[in-house]
């Protein structure tokens, strides 16, 4: 299993995602944002951070990076893409996922450990969880409030495309407590919480580790 972690200027969770991928037994590599070659990766991870400083709007500049053409092609081929936090924002800006991430309801950055409920196990990243399972992992973002119009939200729910939802407290005011979603093809997943920060019990939770331990079959190899 080869997992490529994309590095934009301003990515700052790239090393964390890399470490979590390696710990899960994958062969991890970095892909620089100027590259259009994913190096034969089975899975692409867009990590957290503030790509290009996110001064305009999170992900607004990153979507134009050369690497995003390769990511889009990878996604179009049905291969797995995971966007974490800033990576989720980039995927929405790039229209690989519907909706957008708006400023947190409380208007402040929020870093805390939250509880998520797995709503769908029908993605390559949640196949190792069971629906209804509760996961503890940190959030750390200023723009994490998932928003979309009502028909989009209804459609996401109807098609079982809400992947994880906040329970026991919604840290950012996300609509319908949505923490993560998937695309129509179910191969692209974006979520605001950080599974790579919850990948070993020494750090308080290992609930996120399985997101990086993709089944070979799900990765299409």
């Amino acid at each position, binding site marked *: 299993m080869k997992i490529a972690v994309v590095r934009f200027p*301003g990515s*700052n969770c790239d090393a964390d995602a890399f470490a979590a991928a390696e710990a899960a037994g994958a062969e991890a590599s970095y892909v620089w944002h100027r590259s259009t070659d994913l190096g034969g990766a089975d899975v692409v991870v867009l990590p957290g951070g503030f790509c290009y400083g996110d001064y305009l709007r999170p992900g607004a500049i990153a979507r134009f990076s050369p690497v995003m053409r390769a990511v889009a092609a990878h996604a179009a081929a049905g291969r797995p893409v995971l966007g974490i936090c800033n990576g989720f924002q980039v995927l929405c800006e790039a229209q690989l996922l519907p909706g957008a991430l708006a400023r947190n309801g409380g208007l402040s950055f929020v870093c805390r450990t939250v509880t998520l409920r797995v709503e769908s196990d029908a993605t390559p990243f949640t196949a190792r969880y069971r629906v209804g399972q509760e996961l503890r992992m940190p959030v750390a973002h200023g723009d994490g409030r998932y928003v979309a119009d009502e028909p989009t939200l209804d459609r996401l729910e109807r098609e079982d495309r809400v992947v994880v939802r906040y329970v026991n407290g919604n840290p950012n005011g996300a609509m319908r407590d949505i923490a993560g979603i998937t695309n129509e093809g179910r191969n692209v997943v974006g979520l605001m919480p950080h599974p790579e920060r919850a990948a070993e019990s020494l750090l308080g939770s290992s609930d996120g580790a399985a997101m990086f331990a993709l089944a070979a079959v799900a990765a299409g190899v």
Partner: protein
Amino acid sequence: MTTTAHPRPGDPPITPELVRQHGLTPAEFDRVRSILGRAPTFVELGIFSALWSEHCAYKHSRPVLKAFPTQGPQVLQGPGENAGVLRIGDGWAVAFKMESHNHPSAVEPYQGAATGVGGILRDIFTMGARPVAVLDSLRFGPLESDRQRYLMKGVVRGVGDYGNCVGVPNVGGDVAFESAYEGNPLVNAMCVGLLREDELIRAKAAGPGNPIIAVGSRTGRDGIHGASFASEELSARSEARRPQVQVGDPFTEKLLVEASLELIRSGHIVAIQDMGAAGLTSSSAEMAARGGVGVEIDAALVPVRETAMTPYEILLSESQERMLVVAHRGREREVEAICRKWELGSAVIGHVTDDGMYRVRWGDLVVAEIPGRDLVDHAPVYHPEARESGEIAARRARAVPPPPAGQDLGQVLDRLLDLPTIASKRWVYEQYDSSVQTNTVLGPGGDAAVLRVRGSSRGIAVTSGGSGRYVWLDPYEGGKAVVAEAARNVAATGARPLGITDCLNFGNPEKPEVFYQFREACRGISDACRALDTPVTGGNVSFYNESPAGAVLPTPVIGMVGVLDDVAARVGAAFRSRGDAILCLGRPAGSLGASQYLSLVTGEVFGAPPRVDLAAARALVDCLVACAAERLLVSAHDVAEGGLAVALAECTALSPDLLGAEVDLTAIAGGLDAAAALFGEDQGVVVASCRPEHAARVADTARRLDVPCAAVGRVGAPEGDLRVKVGEARIARPVAQLRRIYEDALPRRLDGAGGMQLARSA
């Protein structure tokens, strides 16, 4: 010696008035003249003004700072560099330093605080260390005023946005509120970095002919004379200084971190330094002085972002996110390639020389030529008069009145937990990313934070803080107390304290009462550091923290680093399991002088602050470390503001399950008044918990090290109450209620209007 430099057409003439505006005294100006053998040019005047400012030259503090203990087998780099460096074992080392950004934050809280974080990050990665943690110690006036809420919100947002964007976790610090900080808040930021011992690089220029390269952001007109601004009192005119506050760009900083570390590892460079206070001037002059060489810079080659900038402006700009690099000759292209990869500009702006001269050109014109050593090492040194204020001595001598009879002690506890200084700082630290980099084993909210050292079994514990109140009432004892408290905080996690950095925030040192505070506090810090074997590795002095309302409380903030040989042995602050034994390590003596209880009850701050017995402080630290290494403790929490009662409330409120606790302090109170036993702020007491079967071993360890240890209760109480008994006196409170008060105190003051009314019967 005579040197030659020429004014630039258009430069103002050097008049006494201009000299005064540059903050140089007539005597200092005479010294400049004798160094140069002539009158300075305008550019040279600016250079002297910046490098001889208090901020850069430590004119008033140097003789005092020299008395700090700075040696030890663990010290890889002591004071004098961008940061101190300590060995932590297995070839690993930590670089750490703390700095103030008080004055910029007073006039522009968001950018002032943000750039404070940016500057301290650069001091760490220029040593070759990757920044792994930020901490911040903040002081404001009471939150009842709009201005203070504005300042606090801006500062917290500034600290958060910068560190969050760069991706360095903010894991701790402290926040306190006193009216003396109303006109002059304190914003002290500390950064900790990790490196391999053999990756250490020093900011020492060498090799005549080697190119000097500016890397990072272009130079603008922001922050000109920031170092001088930091060296004067705040006044009604300070608002006009707003344009001197720099603007931060954390995105560029993130690129600088990566580029700098890559440059250092590449072997292409000799030295690297941040263009911090006094910008290009201080960075180039200090690197040259450390290496005993000269430098020649052509200011016209510095990339600028504004038109028609003069060499004076270019030299003194404090534009952020700029580094100065000395490269090996012939490696200019390699350096440029690394910078370009990280999308950073770079330009060769000069070279190292062998004539010891600090020379600045503007194209063909030499606009400054100053003997480098005289500029940096021979700045004026003052030995100001020191005299204790009689008013403060009288305040200290005032007897603490006996606690009022019939006081509802439970209500006192409620009100203490609601004091912003004591209450939970969650409102602050949840705005900071504390888990990025995936090393945070113990995050903010406890005694010290613990980070694992990836690739080894070790961990480091880090903390920063200090009580200005104690130092105000007794500078020597207070100085001891801030170091001892930092050591207890570190040791509570199981880590062995290794060394400190300090940020010494005081008023105007030209006032004898202020200089007395400074000198005595430093003496206390020195004695404590010797006793605890925690050398001073560097830091920062911030004088002139005065507003028209007067000086701030003398506030030495101590940043301490400790090491855990096995990070898995770390100990948290919260009680964890029902039935665990609660132990009190150290002996409470009921010290109510200068306490939060006393000011709550009387509305005044007075009395003698608690004294630290340094031998006992050392024994307690050793005991905590030994118990943690043997995995005997489930929790350990230092007793500080609010005393044992507040510490017990925190141990229960921080526990995720509302277990409660039953505690009987009668035996250890030994006849003390109940309020004194509960709320006394004795320095040297820790509340710990352990499994019942380990209690005897903890007691044995304590006895062996001569630390008083008493079993005072157990974790868990019916209905999740905290029940504390002292003789006939009782406190019984549902922990859920205590937690609500503790957690709501800041949000209700900062987010909402008004506040919860607590009964005022104490």
